[in-house]
């Protein structure tokens, strides 16, 4: 049992997304520390990948920048290990399947567990092709967090709920990641539909960019995931110290609004 579900059960969660190695490895550690100080308990950490097809321009650019600096799978695991030694939080990996498959499904799960990872999101792994991964994750006690989309039928939603552990990642829109000004119009009823089909916590991501959107969504779910909007903030800052402090303030505000 990991602590992810527990954390959701005690309060609404803001899950920030951090790209491992962006703006650089030291910067990522500072960002994680700032987010924990702001009150984040679960942090999603991405491994940069050459072909991030579920991601919009912001995360693509962060991924490319991290790769250019030479950040790889092992670096991200050391970031997690180091930050967890200092701060109490539940790290959730966001990783494209090829990085798991090529490294070796079991070997990857083992290393993730050793590094302190509690849950793993694989945005390009369908339930249909997930059996080897689910088995490995179970063996090493990692939560398998699957995504459910507005296009998922009732039958698929049930299938996804069945294999999801920790929480279910509800994709707010048909599209890629990235901050949007407006939420999609049927979102609240979609979230309700998912909530009604599962006992697992439901967190909502893709397109969420500010506190008022976060408030509206967390009223009907267990939490929100924000990625691109936070990366934009770091991008705009003059220094990593300034970025981390801006992030701490914004994340703190959002947590206040949703709890």
């Amino acid at each position, binding site marked *: 049992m990991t602590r992810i579900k527990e954390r959701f059960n005690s309060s609404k969660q803001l899950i920030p997304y951090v790209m491992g190695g962006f703006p650089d490895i030291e910067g990522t550690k500072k960002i994680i520390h700032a987010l924990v100080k702001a009150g984040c308990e679960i942090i999603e950490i991405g491994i940069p990948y050459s072909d991030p097809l579920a991601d919009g321009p912001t995360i693509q650019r962060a991924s490319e920048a991290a790769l250019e600096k030479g950040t790889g799978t092992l670096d991200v695991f050391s970031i997690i290990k180091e930050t967890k030694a200092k701060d109490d939080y539940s790290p959730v990996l966001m990783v494209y399947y*090829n990085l798991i498959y090529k490294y070796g499904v079991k070997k990857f799960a083992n290393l993730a567990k050793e590094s302190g990872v509690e849950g793993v999101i694989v945005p390009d792994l369908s339930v249909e092709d997930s059996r080897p991964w689910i088995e490995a994750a179970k063996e090493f006690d990692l939560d398998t967090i699957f995504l459910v989309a507005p296009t998922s039928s009732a039958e698929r939603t049930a299938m996804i709920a069945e294999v999801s552990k920790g929480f279910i990642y509800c994709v707010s829109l048909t599209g890629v990641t990235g901050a949007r000004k407006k939420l999609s119009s049927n979102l609240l009823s979609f979230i309700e539909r998912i909530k009604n089909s599962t006992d697992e916590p439901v967190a909502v991501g893709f397109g969420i960019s500010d506190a008022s959107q976060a408030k509206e969504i967390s009223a009907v779910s267990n939490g929100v995931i924000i990625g691109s909007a936070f990366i934009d903030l770091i991008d705009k800052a003059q220094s990593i110290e300034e970025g981390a402090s801006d992030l701490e303030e914004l994340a703190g505000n959002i947590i206040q609004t949703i709890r």
Partner: protein
Amino acid sequence: MVIDPEREKTIKEDLKKSHFGEFGGQYVPETLMTPLKEVEVTYNKLKDDPSFQEELAHYLRVYVGRPTPLYHAENLSNKLNKGKIYLKREDLCHTGAHKINNTIGQGLMAKRMGKSRVIAETGAGQHGVATATAAALFGLDCFVYMGEEDISRQSLNVFKMKLLGAEVIPVTSGSKTLKDATNEALRDWVTNVENTFYIIGSVVGPHPYPTIVRDFQTIIGRETMSEIEKVEGKLPDYIIACVGGGSNSIGIFHPFIGIENTSLIGVEAAGYGLETGKHGAALAKGTKGVLHGSLQFLLQDDYGQITPAHSISAGLDYPGVGPEHCYLKEKGLASYVSVTDEEALVAFKLLSVSEGIQPALESSHALAYLEKFEPEKKDPIIVVNLSGRGDKDMNVIADALGVEI
């Protein structure tokens, strides 16, 4: 012909499902799973629908110009002295390559599904042009994703697509080539699934695409089979075709899979040479991995980051390869070899002067293999799939020869 019915049955079973052995599958974001199912259900219905098949056959005949001839290249045969060489003339298809066989098929599917908008990825621009052509014919809005690198290398095809009414969207992410254009097309599809049909150009992508594209391209193999039987009274000993993603080769191979007397040889791009690491030979040098929705052999590093391919031929400049080819390789049902940029150029020149046919650089790879081919059989009949014509490559060839045009 000798066909072992049991063996044929197991192979057919393997090739029917969402996976080809362990290869293939649907490694895509959840958002696409329902749209993929919709494409699959539609396709399975249309496959057995006589009105669809008639409509497709009609366009292939009067619009594409099928059947394409099987040409006995006597001069080339005499020069190379490897056997009796036939060329399957896909270069004579409308728009200059086999790509149109597939875009007409998928374009008709889009129409039947009531989708008003089609998208495509393209490397060299051949699939982009073929998609733009089908879209113009069927009155569909067309958006083609193309890497910025390829846009500058293939400006003629970009211009053509625009004149056909398509919008060409430059892709600036990653290596700015075909693989990134494919990512971007998938992102578009995720965003616009409601009204959009994604016309994939090769036997790659998530299930059911490798199967659909293969089925639309097997017309090449079926025609070859009846044409060669008519002139030779038997099937060929060897069939040779180039492999990038692998659509022209699967198209000509597929009807011959499991036939003992016909050996299938796929030719990959060795680029600057396999030993240089700068090539497109995923089957020869790749390892298993997941790209663009399916499990396949891939050019990648030890941690699974995809490494860029290289080939003088933009159509073979792809780090992956269709899952069915991976299956054929593993089962020993086809063999795969490779030739370098330089060898392909030599073959291009040879066919030009000996037969008056200028092949595409992709097809030149298949021809180039003849030079080093040592057939086991005596006086064999060899069919080479001439998948496209070389008009589009004149700038690249001039560059490689150091000529200014």
